[in-house]
């Protein structure tokens, strides 16, 4: 923002209160109707919903694959799937979950909907780019299906060379191209968010008043923009290696297969922070709303997101401790990995401190927050365990790793996604879901999840390797417990699908602010207006100032004014509406 003088512009803005209507006639759902309108929309809210539906679809698909895998593992030898098919199934499960569900889920689905509203903006900075990024996601998905149609791929989602570069599977080429294309979707979303957060904030919304969800999405977008291009070049080099045999990863030609791992993990480790950091943002939002309290340690949480983004780029070699990389690199990576746990730990402690002396309401979103705190802490601690170099030599490529990343990705990101989905569902759809069913399925998920993955820690420590189709008999009770747990999880997700869909067709109408949150996105109608707000919001308080009255969060410009200078010191003259 170009300002001519060095001093901040002092402006006094006339504001008045704009209480959102409880009976909106025109919403973003009614203003643009029909399939074509949805397919060509540039409205961030609709794009967010389209992402949500796609993510849910892929989650169901990959989840179904998981159930198939777990069923196969009921007995040590073949149960009903061939070994080669098994390899393809876990590869597909991993690739789909990572690239089509977890990476886009919170930023693209929930973030797209909520971010502009939390900033008081009418849309993201580049709405047409936003639509493009959705279609790029779809095209990437089509390429992946093409890969399946042309014989599939069984390299594991990590595509390690030399197998991935030597194998003749046309499927590998298709899926690598699909991932290449998908990467651009991620990059464009990140670009959009960075520009929006910098440029489209409502008057009065300074950096210190931003909701922590915004800080989290900001950190995520930075990671997306810096890391994803390296994935793109890695995938391209893999494709060239596969098609043309250029030799960069082939030792016979003077290349190095470990180099592929360096390039791959340079993206894929920060990628896991792309998955979890937006989840952290959601936790901050939900935990404050349902404790009716301001967050403990605002700046600690905000800056720790940036710290995680930065340190996350320095630790990728902890996936390669047994790959043959030098002892120097290995030691450095192990040390740096311990560091990355610190900002995350700060967040967890701050969230727990937020609960203290709060007025806690155990609604479904809050239930998921507690589940998150428990499961993600286990996931995080076991990550540190794996980061300990000497221990990892024993645990690498065992079920311990599998359990760890499911605890952080599913117990972390997915729980946060469910929390956010249940939190913002009334806002997005204008409907309330069945609270009792919500609570029941949350409990089922908790039970099912632990039953599925806790035994895997023990198995892994006892030596059960990952990606193995067969196993020795001593692991049978663990595998069988795990399989039963996965069925419970499956049932729980079906229940969630059921009551969410049911709420759309005849659920109770949602008020504009069912949770009495102070968030700016709640000071609009449910569902919101096509332009989000029918006024320009003005922000005078911090995002979690629950000790201030609700009226102070519903202010908007009373007179038509340029008002785009968020640096303006805002003095408000309230005229009670």
């Amino acid at each position, binding site marked *: *923002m*170009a300002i001519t003088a060095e001093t901040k512009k002092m402006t006094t803005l006339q504001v008045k209160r704009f209480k959102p209507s409880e009976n909106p006639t025109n919403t973003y759902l009614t203003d643009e109707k029909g399939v074509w309108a949805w397919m060509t929309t540039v409205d961030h809210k609709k794009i967010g919903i389209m992402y949500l539906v796609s993510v849910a679809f892929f989650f169901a698909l990959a989840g179904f694959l998981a159930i198939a895998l777990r069923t196969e593992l009921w007995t040590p030898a073949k149960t009903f799937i061939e070994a080669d098919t098994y390899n393809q199934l876990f590869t597909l499960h991993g690739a789909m979950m990572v690239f089509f569900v977890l990476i886009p889920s919170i930023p693209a689905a929930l973030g797209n909907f909520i971010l502009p509203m939390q900033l008081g*903006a*009418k*849309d*993201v*900075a*580049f*709405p047409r*780019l936003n639509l493009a990024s959705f279609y790029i996601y779809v095209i990437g998905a089509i390429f992946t299906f093409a890969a399946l149609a042309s014989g599939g791929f069984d390299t594991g989602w990590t595509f390690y060379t030399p197998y991935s570069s030597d194998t003749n599977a046309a499927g590998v080429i298709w899926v690598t191209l699909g991932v290449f294309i998908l990467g651009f979707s991620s*990059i464009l979303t*990140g*670009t*959009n968010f*960075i*520009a929006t957060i*910098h*440029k*489209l904030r409502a008057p009065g919304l300074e950096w210190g008043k931003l909701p922590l969800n915004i800080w989290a999405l900001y950190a995520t977008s930075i990671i997306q*923009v*810096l*890391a*994803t*291009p*390296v994935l*793109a*070049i*890695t995938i*391209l*080099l893999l494709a*060239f*290696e596969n*098609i*043309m*045999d*250029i*030799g*960069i990863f082939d030792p016979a*030609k*003077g*290349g*190095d297969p470990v*180099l592929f791992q360096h*390039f791959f993990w*340079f993206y894929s480790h920060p990628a896991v922070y792309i998955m979890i950091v937006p989840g952290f943002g959601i936790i901050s939002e939900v935990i404050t709303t349902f404790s009716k309290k301001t967050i403990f340690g605002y700046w600690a949480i905000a800056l720790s997101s940036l710290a995680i983004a930065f340190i996350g780029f320095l630790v990728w070699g902890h996936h390669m401790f047994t790959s043959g990389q030098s002892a120097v690199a290995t030691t450095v990576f192990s040390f740096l990995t311990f560091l990355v746990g610190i900002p995350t730990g700060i967040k967890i402690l701050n969230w727990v401190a937020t609960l203290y002396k709060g007025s806690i309401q155990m609604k479904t979103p809050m239930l998921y927050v507690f589940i998150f705190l428990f499961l993600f802490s286990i996931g995080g601690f076991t990550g540190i365990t794996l980061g300990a170099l000497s221990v990892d030599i024993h645990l690498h490529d065992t079920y311990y790793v599998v359990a760890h990343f499911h605890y952080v990705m599913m117990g972390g990101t997915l729980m946060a996604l469910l929390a956010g989905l249940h939190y913002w569902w009334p806002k997005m759809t204008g409907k309330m879901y069945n609270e009792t069913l919500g609570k029941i399925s949350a409990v089922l998920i908790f039970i099912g999840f632990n039953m599925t993955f806790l035994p895997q820690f023990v198995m892994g420590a006892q030596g059960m390797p990952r990606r193995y189709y067969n196993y020795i008999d001593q692991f049978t009770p663990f595998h069988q417990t795990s399989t039963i747990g996965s069925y419970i999880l499956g049932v729980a997700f079906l229940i969630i699908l059921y009551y969410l869909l049911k709420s759309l067709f005849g659920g109770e109408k949602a008020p504009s602010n069912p949770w009495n949150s102070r968030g700016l996105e709640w000071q609009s109608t449910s569902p919101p207006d096509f*332009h989000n707000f*029918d*006024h*320009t919001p003005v922000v005078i308080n911090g995002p979690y100032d629950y000790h201030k009255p609700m009226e102070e969060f519903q202010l908007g*410009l009373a007179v*038509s004014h*340029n*008002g*785009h200078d968020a640096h303006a010191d805002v003095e408000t003259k309230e005229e009670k509406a």
Partner: protein
Amino acid sequence: MANHSASQPAHVHHHFVDSEQQFDTAKLGMWVFLVNEILFFGGLFCAYIIFRAWYPELYTQAALQLDKTMGGINTIVLIFSSMTVAFAIRCAQLNNIKWLRWNLMFTILLACVFLVIKYFEYEHKLHLGIAPGSYWNPTPEILEVLDHPKANIFFSIYYIMTGIHGLHVVVGIGLMIWLYIRAGKGHFSSEYYTPVEITGLYWHLVDLIWIFLFPLLYLIE
């Protein structure tokens, strides 16, 4: 009442308050995209550095096969194309649409010259059997001066780096032709020339990448 920028000119989109905000945001968005491009090429430069550290004598030997003169001319060509695109922006800012178009045309022509020179470079090498990957099949004369067993690695890196750079040049040409046409239809003025500005930034990046590619590939002695 909705705060639409109803009094704003047509090119200002509804979610922006004014032209200034839209312009600054577009520039910020393009700079973020350039960060992205830097990391993309960065991966290739990283591979280059690693292999050079492993096989320094290969690089010295293999680089002799690259034509310094052609590379040098291409560098000058790109530098001047950067200059003409900067002039194009200046003309847009001064509302001189006629010279905006001329400068865009100069840039396009210079970019085409770059591609033509590149084509001759590639053709010459492929003729000698210096090809990437499994097509590596150098003539005996070449093998006499280039006897390093891993020579194909250098040239694979060369082809991929210059090839992807060349692709970016082609995209740039396409963008500038589109700008040329739009300028002809009167879409741009000193009030609104944002697409020219951000395409210019992209083009400068293409030049920047080459500024590093040239010495690292061609000037190894």
